[in-house]
Every structure is written in C-alpha cells, then in structure tokens.
C-alpha cells in the first residue's frame, strides 16, 4: 500500500525559517550559552526565539546553547541541543508501544505519548454511503453518515512495535497529542531502519531547499524520510550504503553549527564511497 519510491520531507511551513537560519552565510556563527547577555540595547532589539529579558528588562539573554542570529530587530538563538515539542501539523515517526480496543499508544520521542484512534487510521471514503446502499467496496455502514463502518473502529490494523509515519492533529497542555496516519506519505513502514538524532539538528539534515537531503539520497542511493521529532527513516540497497548514510547523518549532527557543511559532507561521502569500495 505504501509508495516506497523516493520521497523526502520538506516542510513548507514554519520550519523553512529554521533551515534559513542554519544555512544563511551572513548569520553570525557565534555560539552563545544559557544566561549569556546578547545585548543591552533593549531600545533597538526585541527578544526572539530562545531568548528572554532579564527582570529589569535592561538586557536580553540566551536561554539555550545555540547560535546567535539577528533577524530584523529580533535577536534569536537557534538551539544546538534540545528536545522535541509536538506541534499540530508536524510529520513525525511514531512507534506503537501499546494498544487497547479503542486506541493505540505511540512513542513519539516527546514528554507525552501520542494517541492514535482508529478513525484516524482509515481514509474516509466518500463513496461509502449511509446504510450501505453503494455497491462494491465495504457497503454496510452502520447507521452513521461519516463513512466509517463498524469494522473500521478497532485496533487490528497496527501492532505493538510497528513504525508509523504520522501527522500531529492536535497537541496542547492538557491533552496528549493526537495523531493520524491518513495523508500523503503517512502510514506504516514495513522495512528499512529508523535512527534518532537531536531534534534541533533536523533542519540541517534537510538543508536549504532540501539541498543536503537531496545530496545524501543521491550519493548513498538510499530512501530517506526526515521528520520533526528527530527520527529519520532510511532504506538503502545494502547494509554498507545504509551504514555510510547513518554515519554521515551523525557527522552532520556533530557539525551542524559550521558553515559550508553541505559541500564538505558531499566531499566526505564521495571520498568514503571510494574508500569503502561502494561505487
């Protein structure tokens, strides 16, 4: 059921900013630390991401270890270390860790587990009509106009240990994040392998306009899905290629703060392909 051909994830929303910040050559490469004063000029600058006023509002300080970056009159700190916070719309990799007849419990590498309900695992079929009057397909809807049959409302589809690509439907302070497997590129993965990296480094693995991930894919000849919760699914033609890709991703993770990384990674991988005899 899954389309296993080449895909990559390029989030066309707020995460574009993250990528820009990392790849922008004019951005300061200054590493700043928690509590470090970024500016005392509070007339001309405002605290942006990863920053805060001190109690007298006379200084702006950093909240994290990160890269200092100025955008218009906002001072931001792009964190170099951090944990994942679920946001609606994020596409992430989840693992089913438990289930009961009415829902799946999923590990999403966040402080809460995510909940996946059966209704969010089935594509709504518009042709399925009320009281099963349509021919073929499932027919037999049970008195509900929402297109779901009773057979759908169970948790038989997925099992504990399954890897799913999901999207976050909702997440707030009180409710655990709700997930769905309905959508483009979403659903179960039956092969390949998943690795985890530090979530703030994900934009670096994607690169500006996907430049890094395209390069990784082409050179290592692997399929790659990069998701927001720091997890990356990959599959290559053999273990040697996959291992090269995994090691390359770890290298990107360690050097995310440096400029010119895409070019250097390209050089590194091409070199390794020769050294390891992987042409």
């Amino acid at each position, binding site marked *: 059921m899954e389309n296993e051909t080449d895909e990559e994830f390029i989030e066309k929303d707020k995460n574009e900013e993250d990528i820009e910040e990392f790849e922008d050559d004019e951005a300061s490469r200054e590493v700043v630390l928690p509590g470090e004063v970024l500016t005392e000029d509070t007339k001309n600058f405002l605290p942006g991401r990863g920053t805060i006023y001190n109690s007298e509002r006379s200084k702006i300080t950093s909240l994290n270890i990160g890269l200092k970056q100025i955008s218009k009159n906002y001072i931001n700190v792009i964190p170099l270390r951090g944990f994942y916070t679920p946001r609606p719309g994020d596409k992430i990799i989840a*693992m089913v860790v438990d289930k009961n007849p009415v829902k799946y419990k999923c590990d999403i590498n966040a402080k809460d587990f995510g909940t996946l309900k059966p209704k969010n695992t089935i594509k709504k079929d518009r042709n399925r009509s009320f009281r099963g009057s349509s021919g073929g397909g499932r027919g037999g809807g049970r008195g509900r106009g929402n297109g779901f049959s009773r057979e759908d409302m169970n948790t038989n589809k997925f099992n504990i*240990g*399954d890897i799913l690509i999901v999207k976050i439907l909702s997440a707030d302070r009180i409710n655990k994040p709700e997930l769905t497997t309905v959508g483009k590129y979403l659903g179960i993965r039956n*092969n*390949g*392998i*998943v690795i*985890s990296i530090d979530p703030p480094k994900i934009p670096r693995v994607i690169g500006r306009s996907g430049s890094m991930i395209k390069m990784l894919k082409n050179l290592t000849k692997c399929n790659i899905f990069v998701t927001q919760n720091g997890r990356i699914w990959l599959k290559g033609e053999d273990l040697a290629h996959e291992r090269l890709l995994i090691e390359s991703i770890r290298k990107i993770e360690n050097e995310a703060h440096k400029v010119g990384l895409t070019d250097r990674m390209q050089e590194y991988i091409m070199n390794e392909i020769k050294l390891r005899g992987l042409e």
Partner: protein
Amino acid sequence: MMDVKRIVSRIEKNYIKSNLRKEERIDGRGLWDYREFEIKSDIIASAEGSADVFLGDTRIMTGLKYDVGTPFPDLPNEGVCTVMAELLPLASPLFERGPPGEQSIELARVVDRGIRHADCIQTKKLCIKEKEAVYILFVDMYVVNHDGNLIDTGAISALATLLSAHIPEGIIGDNGLEWTGKYLTGKDLVNELPIALTYGKIDDIIFLDPKLPEELVCEGRISISVTENKICSIQKSGAATFSIDEIKMLGKKSIEIGQKLRKQLNLTQHLSKVK
C-alpha cells in the same frame, strides 16, 4: 538504533535478523568480533584499586575496597573477595532506581563466579592471622553507560581492578592490627586472568558481544568464562535453546578468542607500581 526503550521496533528486529543472516552486524562487525576495549586503571584516589572500562560505548567503573574481619570457620586461613554490581539509573532509560534487580545480580554473580572458579585470587594471601583476621575484598562495579554486554565489560573491569590493587599490608602486632608500611598488590594476589565471553542467539545465529539493540532482540544468551586453557564458568540465560554441538563449538571458540584478547589487552600493564 532508535532511542532505545523497552520495545524494539519490528523493522529494527527484522533489520538485525536479515543482516545476521548475511553474517553482518549493524555496526559492521563480524559474528565473532568484539567492539573496542579501552581500559584505564587506578583512577579512583579513594579506592585501593580501580578500573574504568569501555567496551564500545558500554562503560563500567569498578573500585576495590577492603575490610578486615574474622574468617569463615571452615576456611580459617583464607580471605574473601566479593563482587557487587549496580546498574546506575543514569546509564540508561532501561535502568530504574531502587535495590539491585535481577540484571545487576546476574552481572555480579557471573563475574564473581568467573573469578572464583579460575582461582583468580590467592585467597590464602588474604590471611593476616589464621582464625583471627583476614582481608575481605569488595569489588564493586558501577555501570555508567549501557550499550549491551555488561558481563564481558564487567569481567574485564573487575580483573583490571584487582590487578591494580594496592592494599595496605597488615599484621597482628603487640598493639593489634598494624600496618607494615607496605602494600599487597595485584602481583601478590592475582593468579589467573579469567575473561568472560558472552554470545547472543537470534534465529539460530550465534554471535559474540551483543550491542544493546541486538541484546534486546536476543532470544538467548550464553556467557563462558575462560582462563588460558580452561573453561571455569558458564551461564546460559534467556528462553532459547542451544544444541550440544553449538555449546562444544562455543567452548572451543571461547578459549581461542580469550587467548587472543588476553594478548591484545596486555592486562598485566595494569599491575600497581606501588610497593
């Protein structure tokens, strides 16, 4: 590879298995290869012997302390060496706080038996005065990072710790227990160099030194402790079964690999220089 909690994903299980079938491991090793050992000894100032051992990313820091006590009635001129292990909660999300559980008890006991049955420690040298005073040695292992195969790492760390020993030498004089000014060292105490080799079994394939994801997928495990030419202790765990031929094969392999490893590690370099 994925942030390891208690459950290993189905695709990771398949990944490990399909590669094992090709005799490949997820980190590029062969079926009978160890990860890299790194050993630093005598690093704890407060201890009378210590070692910090890495096997790949698995890390165990072990220390030796002594006490003086009365001997067991049936062994009036022998001292005692006991081994303890703690799986520190900081080492892995898999370890919980609280008193030692099954896994830490197994680790301590397997390492202890490897040392004991190799006659590794000359317990008669641990006697100060027959029937009255003997040394009691405490070898305490702390797991600082868990990436699989705590037993082999623990065994090497316990051994390096004992080799690095510098225990104050005591005699019973006119005023009771006194210090001679000298030390009992590993050279005095350590007789043999037992090494533990742990194998995992997945789907009928057996391999040495399981890394954590492999260990979590393993259906069975077996640890064999060896001296240069003898087998001194065996422990099989897990639900999988091993055939008689497999055990014979592993016995032979263990002695061979043990000999190679002993040479490679050159453990006697950790003998204490104090005197």
